[in-house]
């Protein structure tokens, strides 16, 4: 880590001789000691989950939400400085609302990620501001239906329009992760925060690219991965918060909503059982992990 003591790391926007913006790298440090948050892209929906470290016994269980609704079909979660996360959410909501007022149609997850990436990147160009201390995961479901213009009346021919290009599908799940530098990519599975390494390892095992994982299983996997990732944070209590977005035929009908209590608890119990299974794996026979595997396919 050359150039540490040489003053190149004191102001934002300044490049060190080896081309690094240290303020951004320090921002990533802030992200790394935040609670773990993950996103999983399933074939019929997307899941967001976060490991909320309980900082005080006085906090009301289930009250302090960290996963936010950006637009009806898009949710976002972030790890790192919570206030920066809230600012991110507020700006994302404005971007989604402004797109909707201009184009009278919901913003696609890709376009939202692009706008937020640009926004975060701006904070690395000037020394009068500091970069965002968060990495955000933005998940959405772009409608597979042909949406009318907001407010439009009338419907065109009952047999639908002619001349559509055959064989193309539209809409579907979107999962993007945006870093303090403003860099973002689309992912099948994304993880950030303290337990991101463990989480990413678990996500890779799921072979998400095959697009076989169903939303229902995705929710179970997300709970399990948060619990496994929590191992890096063993000394602190945590609370699991999960949200999901399904396609139009699924449980949330295209809208970003909290995972219902019963489904959340079921996933949590499975996750806990999985962890116990993993602890006595060395001593007992291997039926428990099999149960773990079953859950994975």
């Amino acid at each position, binding site marked *: 880590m050359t150039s540490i003591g040489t003053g190149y790391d004191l102001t934002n926007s300044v490049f060190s001789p080896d081309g690094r913006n240290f303020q951004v790298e320090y921002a990533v440090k802030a992200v790394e000691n935040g609670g773990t948050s993950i996103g999983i892209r399933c074939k019929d929906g997307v899941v967001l989950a976060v490991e909320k470290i309980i900082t005080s016994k006085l906090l009301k269980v289930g009250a302090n*939400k960290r996963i*936010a609704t950006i637009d*009806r079909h898009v949710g976002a979660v972030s790890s790192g400085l919570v206030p920066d996360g809230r600012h991110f959410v507020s700006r994302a*909501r404005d971007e989604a609302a402004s797109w909707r007022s201009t184009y*009278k149609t919901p913003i696609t997850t890709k376009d939202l990620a692009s706008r937020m990436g640009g926004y975060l990147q701006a904070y690395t160009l000037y020394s009068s501001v500091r970069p965002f201390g968060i990495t955000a995961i933005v998940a959405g479901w772009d409608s597979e239906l042909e949406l009318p213009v*907001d*407010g439009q*009346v009338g419907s065109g021919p009952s047999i639908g329009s002619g001349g559509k290009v055959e064989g193309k599908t539209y809409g579907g799940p979107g999962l993007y992760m945006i870093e303090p530098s403003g860099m973002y990519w689309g992912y099948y599975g994304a993880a950030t925060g303290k337990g991101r390494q463990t989480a990413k390892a678990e996500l890779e095992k799921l072979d998400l690219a095959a697009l076989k994982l169903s939303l229902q299983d995705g929710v179970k996997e997300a709970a399990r991965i948060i619990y496994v990732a929590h191992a890096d944070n063993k000394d602190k209590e945590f609370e699991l918060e999960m949200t999901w977005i399904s396609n139009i035929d699924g449980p949330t009908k295209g809208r970003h909503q909290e995972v219902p209590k019963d489904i959340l608890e079921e996933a949590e119990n499975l996750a806990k059982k999985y962890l116990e299974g993993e602890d006595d794996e060395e001593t007992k026979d291997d039926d428990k992990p099999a149960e773990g595997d079953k859950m994975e396919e």
Partner: protein
Amino acid sequence: MNHLPQAWGRPRDDIYGAYDSSYLQSHGPNQHTQQPIVTGTSVVALKFKDGVIIAADNLASYGSLARFTDVKRLRTFADTSVVGFGGDVSDMQYLDRLLNSLDTEEAYSSSGHTLNAQNLHTYLSKVFYKRRSDFNPLWNQILVAGLDGESKPFLASADLLGTTFSSPSLATGFGAHLAQPLLRKVAPDEEAAAKLSKEQALEAVKESMKVLFYRDARSLDNYSIAVITKDGIDLKENEKLEKQSWAFADQIRGYGTQIN
């Protein structure tokens, strides 16, 4: 020759004459005085035991021309309320978009939907009143039907001036003159409305739509109707008017003596 910068690149007044700025608006508040162009006619609604029934035909007129016959003038909000729009269709569409953003803001809070029909009515009436006070009105009269804070049937009206009122039965436009008397026979007051069955209420509303089709020259025999109860909204958007009676026409003859 005028060398001042303001005159650069402008046609010379002495050759082309001074600029005629009569159409430019130079005085008073920015006048938005407008008039409704594409319009919807009456909206009719009636409270009953378990909720409210609201109906409106599917016509948008362009003056006297029955131009658009597939315009749905009932809009649901958050599966709890229905807003029926009379008056200018372009303003109806603006309000539709406004309700979309209101619905999105509702989704921001994790506690989900908190706005009942009464809150929606209050919100919309203040939107109307603000626009009216800016002399840039939303040229509509709307009925908001649904349930209030205590899940009791709620029905109220709001219009371009911001005037609001609530009653067991309501009707806008022509309906205020033709439908209200019929509905008031069935539900003269809150107690009577609270005893009405869904079937009785449906009958009264459908009867009103028929009478309006007879007498309102800007109406259509194809309408939408919604029944709102605590179990949700049952919205039908392509109902055909039935049981019309025109046969008595053969008893009527025109002016002057004629053989048959």
